[in-house]
């Protein structure tokens, strides 16, 4: 089973059933305890466990592979720095996402190095030149010819995501891609549940308008 497939399964299995689950996962608790003892390999295990989720979420928000990688790295470094402040009252990944989203938002606002690239901009890789949207959309398509239609739809969806305001995009990514519940999103973003609900509603309406031709 590919890494991607296993991730997808894990996501589907744990959709909203995790909603409201506050106790720390036993595996995470053990890894964190080992981290606190100074075992670097335990932290490595934590990174490996969550890197794909964090990376994918940030990538969908910022639309730039390099920035997503940088922000993912920063997320884990910051998490380690602040490990003492993790009170274990919430799931570790909720806390991790909170760091990731804060970093993404902050970096985006500073807009210094992190200029989120347009999806139709080009990136040269060896002799080939790709459009970023295609990279993101097609990265895991094993047979591009067979999946060309699907890839095109995905590219359109990603482009539509990038067009809507960041505050709406983040909520959509957390809800529909990360499949978090409203309560959990409110904890990650430190927003009232009502705000999460209304932002999500507005985001979906905006996306609906952007993707109206795909609705038919």
């Amino acid at each position, binding site marked *: 089973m590919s*890494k*991607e497939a296993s*991730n*997808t399964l894990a*996501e589907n299995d744990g959709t*909203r059933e995790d909603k409201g689950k506050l106790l720390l996962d036993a595996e995470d608790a053990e890894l964190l305890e080992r*981290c*606190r*003892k*100074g*075992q*670097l390999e335990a*932290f*490595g295990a934590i*990174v*490996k466990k969550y*890197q*794909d989720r*964090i*990376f*994918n979420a940030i*990538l*969908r928000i910022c639309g730039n592979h390099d920035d997503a*990688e940088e922000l*993912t*790295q920063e997320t884990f*470094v910051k998490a*380690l*720095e602040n490990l*003492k402040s993790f009170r274990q009252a919430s799931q570790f990944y909720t806390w991790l996402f909170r760091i990731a989203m804060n970093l993404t938002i902050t970096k985006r606002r500073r807009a210094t190095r992190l200029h989120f690239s347009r999806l139709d901009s080009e990136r040269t890789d060896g002799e080939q030149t790709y459009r970023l949207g295609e990279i*993101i*959309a097609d*990265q*895991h*398509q094993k047979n591009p010819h067979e999946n060309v239609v*699907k890839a095109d*739809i*995905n590219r359109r*969806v*990603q482009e539509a*995501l990038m067009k809507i305001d960041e505050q709406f995009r983040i909520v*959509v*990514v957390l*809800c*529909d*891609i990360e*499949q978090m*519940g*409203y309560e959990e999103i409110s904890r990650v973003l430190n927003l009232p549940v009502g705000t999460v*609900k*209304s932002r*999500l*509603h507005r985001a*979906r*309406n905006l*996306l*609906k308008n952007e*993707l109206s031709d*795909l*609705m038919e």
Partner: protein
Amino acid sequence: MDEKEKITELLSAYIDGELSSEQARAVEDLLQRQPELAKELESLRKVRQLIRDLPRVSAPDDLAQKVLARVKRKPRVRLVSIKRFGQLAAAAGIILLIGIGIIITQLTHKPTRTAGYKSPSASEEKTLRRSTPAPSNLLASAAMTSTPAKAVMNIPINTVNLTLTQKQIESILTRNNIKPADSAKMTVAIKKASKPDRKSQPINIFKRTQIKPNQIRYEVVITRKQLKHIIDELNAIRASQNVAQVPLITPKESGGGRGLEKIALAEPGRGKTKKLGKEREIAALSQPAPAGAEKIEIAKVPTPEVDRTWTRKGEIAKSASTKRQIRPLEKLHPLSRKPIVTAATPKESKSRHSFIAYSSNKAEPSSRKTTTTQPQLAQIVVILTAVNTGR
């Protein structure tokens, strides 16, 4: 928000399963009665499905390695806080590195103007302060000739007669049995004194450096006990100058850290570096950790089975019987937590170094208790800066 929007917002929450059963039933009633709402619901579902169908992109394979490399590179992300250990050791008063840098500045104007002294005006005061090297500069210049000091205390002296002040200072130093030393000797002395768990011995040397024609700096390594004696005499020099004096630079400003002043001026055997009595030490060892705190013993805990074995939460980490072996062992453990108690059981430990227990609880600095077998011999840093306001 109009009524229609409220309803569509409910639809969005409905497809996410975020409505209460009552709200969900109400929405279902509406959907049955209003076909356009059902269409809207379908659109929202499609949008959600399109987003969900986006492929999940995996992080680069080497991301974990990169993160770990960054962690190792970044000193403040070290799992083991060596810096903290250094601070603890300094605070514990096993040995505080003390350098006394005395910078005497004499302005290029008239060398003496003791008679008819007039207090400087506000603008003159500004000039005075500008002419005084900033504490950080003092520290930097002090650091150039010595290893980084754990704590430095600045005592600026403004003078109108550099030669006289120099004589006065050297008189004080020699009277207190503080001997002149060359650079090499001073460097070695400071290095020795900076080792926190080294057996503390009085060093008592000073080095004079002519920084500029009108500036002299003294680096002095002395014991805390001696500092207590000479600080009054140095202050007397300041008071006798008949020129405005720059306020004393607090240890905090000069990088000495919180509470240094108290340590510096504490009576031997008193204050934060007070040596715990043997009975207290034993009692402290048996004290339970505060509520919510984790008591971690990193000390040498000889047991009938394994003598001289360092343990941490019952886990045998490494066998170590000398102080030299302690520090590498410390590095194995995250000692970023503040100590709650330091204690030793004399019968069990032949080592002069005591047991240290750490807690994850955020103890106040005042709750730090540390031991040193010769607290009165701990060294301390003071930098004296003198500024001449004479014209």
